[in-house]
């Protein structure tokens, strides 16, 4: 009666089939000699045995697939917040079902199955952090869902992390976080425009991040009476305690010294004219060199001593604490062209750039060490010990004209040129000049309009110095005669 009842819901044909199957099973047991009383326990035993085997095989299959998927070594590369992220991978999709990737929604990513067993994780991660994603899938009905843990990190955009903490005004030798100047030189009696000087210096992000002072400095001057231009740029050493003062004193001292020496210096002026009209004459060249030593070399010495005096006045600190690089140039226009003399110790770049003739003349060689950040400083006594080594730091040039004379600290030259080789490559300077003029539209940083008497160019230049370059966040200073 019970069976009747259970089968009552089925269609008559189906009931007949089931009855037929039961009869066959009963017959098979009889043929195998299973006595009537054993039939029930025997059936139970068979089913249990097979069920266990079935479960075991199903589990083995799961472990096999899990192992296979683990062996694929699926790894997700890290990404950056708010930047497109996409990673695809393949899975043996014919062996698994219900594939999900848990934890993606909260990051703002989308996980989809493509064709041919390809899976895609993509989107713009909305939150920074370290995440554990769980790839879950089923191997067989009845088996627990399998899981593979895949770690991934989404980094913040470094640009969002910079802070701009003003420098404490009470620190010794405080200086402003940025500085800018423009020297507008009016046309002479001939009515022709004269070159102007623009300079700007801004504290690097790495200093702003910690509320530390700017270490760079510049000094620029146009001597009204003698018509000489003087430009100086100095980079105080990153970790030297008072290098900000070192760079300031060095620039100030050298501008002051040159200005005094160039005032009414009839002997120097005539030596230059003599030499310019007879450039193969060694004696005339030596005579100019003699003056350059007086003006330029002594200027560097004066700067060294001036820094030393400040250090000594501040009893407890060493000269090393004021470590700074220094580069400076004096220039003047003559009928025959421009006369330029310079001195350079440390890194950065100083060059005469001539767009018309497509030439670039680097006024020295940057001092660089085995590793980044290693250089030489004006404050190292050994700089002045070897006269031959000193003379290599001096340069003299006569050029018909030029587009711009650039002096810059490594905060600008490193991101723009990277290597010494590039510093000697005209095309790199052309690229640099284009960037200076055009700015960085993608970062909403405008260019610098280097037209005659454009006093606004100083603000443009200061803004331009804030350009973005990964890993380059040093103080940036540039002086341009154009």
């Amino acid at each position: 009666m019970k069976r009747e009842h259970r089968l009552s819901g089925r269609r008559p044909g189906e009931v007949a089939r089931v009855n037929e199957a039961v009869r066959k099973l009963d017959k098979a047991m009889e043929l195998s000699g299973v006595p009537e009383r054993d039939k029930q326990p025997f059936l139970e035993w068979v089913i249990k045995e097979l069920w266990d085997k079935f479960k075991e095989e199903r589990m083995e299959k799961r472990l096999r697939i899990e192992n296979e998927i683990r062996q694929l070594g699926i790894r997700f590369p890290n990404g950056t917040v708010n930047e497109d992220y996409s990673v695809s991978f393949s899975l043996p999709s014919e062996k698994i079902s219900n594939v999900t990737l848990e934890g993606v929604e909260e990051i703002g990513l989308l996980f989809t199955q493509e064709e041919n067993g390809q899976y895609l994780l993509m989107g713009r991660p909305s939150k920074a952090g370290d995440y554990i994603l769980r790839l879950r899938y089923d191997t067989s009905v009845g088996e627990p869902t399998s899981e593979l843990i895949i770690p991934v990190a989404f980094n913040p955009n470094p640009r969002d992390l910079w802070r701009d903490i003003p420098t404490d005004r009470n620190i010794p030798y405080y200086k402003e976080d940025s500085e800018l100047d423009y020297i507008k030189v009016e046309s002479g009696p001939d009515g022709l425009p004269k070159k102007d000087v623009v300079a700007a210096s801004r504290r690097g992000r790495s200093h702003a991040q910690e509320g530390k002072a700017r270490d760079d400095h510049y000094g620029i001057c146009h001597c009204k009476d003698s018509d000489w231009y003087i430009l100086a740029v100095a980079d105080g050493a990153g970790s030297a305690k008072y290098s900000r003062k070192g760079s300031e004193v060095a620039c100030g001292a050298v501008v002051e010294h040159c200005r005094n020496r160039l005032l009414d210096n009839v002997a120097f002026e005539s030596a230059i004219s003599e030499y310019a009209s007879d450039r193969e004459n060694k004696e005339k060249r030596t005579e100019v060199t003699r003056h350059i030593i007086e003006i330029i070399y002594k200027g560097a010495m004066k700067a060294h001593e001036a820094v030393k005096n400040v250090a000594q006045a501040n009893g407890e600190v060493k000269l090393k604490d004021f470590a700074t690089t220094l580069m400076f140039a004096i220039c003047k226009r003559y009928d025959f062209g421009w006369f330029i003399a310079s001195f350079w110790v440390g890194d950065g770049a100083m060059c005469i750039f001539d767009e018309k003739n497509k030439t670039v003349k680097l006024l020295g060689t940057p001092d660089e060490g085995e590793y980044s950040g290693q250089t030489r400083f004006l404050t190292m006594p050994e700089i002045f010990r070897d006269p031959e080594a000193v003379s290599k730091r001096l340069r003299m040039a006569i050029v018909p004209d030029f587009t711009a004379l650039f002096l810059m600290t490594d905060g600008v030259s490193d991101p723009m040129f990277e290597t010494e080789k590039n510093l000697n490559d005209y095309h790199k300077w052309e690229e640099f000049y284009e960037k200076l003029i055009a700015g960085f539209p993608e970062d909403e940083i405008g260019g610098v309009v280097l037209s005659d008497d454009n006093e606004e160019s100083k603000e443009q230049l200061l803004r331009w110095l804030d350009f973005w370059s990964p890993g380059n966040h040093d103080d940036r200073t540039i002086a341009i005669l154009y």
Partner: protein
Amino acid sequence: MRRLPVYLLIDTSGSMRGEPIESVKVGLETMVSSLRQDPFALESVNISIITFDRDVKQVLPLTPLDELQLPQITTPDSGPTHTGEALRLLCERIDEEVKRSAPDHKGDWMPLLFLMTDGKPSDSKLYREMIPEIKKRRFAGIIACAAGMNAKTEPLKELTDEVYSLDTVDSTSFKKFFKWVSDSIGVGNRSLGATDDLLLPPPPPEVNVII
């Protein structure tokens, strides 16, 4: 781009098994996530991890911080501590991985080394031989940490002046230690240049200075 290479040498000898090594892992995670909040580090720090027990392995080749995913770190049941062998591998990896300046490419920043051990070098002869080799590589800073009561500070003092100790090898100590390491890397980033001495931030109370 110029990188700041940071090498972490971690003792994985048998005595580190269990809570100590688990604490180190937590500490490393803390260090990495803390460094990721520092924009300068995010753009320049590259980390390598070398573990040493009987075997010495570079479990993480020099990898940019933003791409980094911490590797599996395992410990054997027992066995010697091959610190000297670890220094040898370190020199080899530095020569291979760290770029020196050349006219056509910029060098990396001077590398930093952090060494953590809970014992003493079993291969002390090789250890001593490697010390001058390490000095030749010109690190911006070498910071050694003796973790736990059984760690010997004397051999570490031969390697560097910057030796610190942890009284306990639990997760609090390691967390604090690696947080301090990440702060030191931040400082290391910025103090490269004129001075030869690395300016370290003051260590937390859990980290003792060995004089």
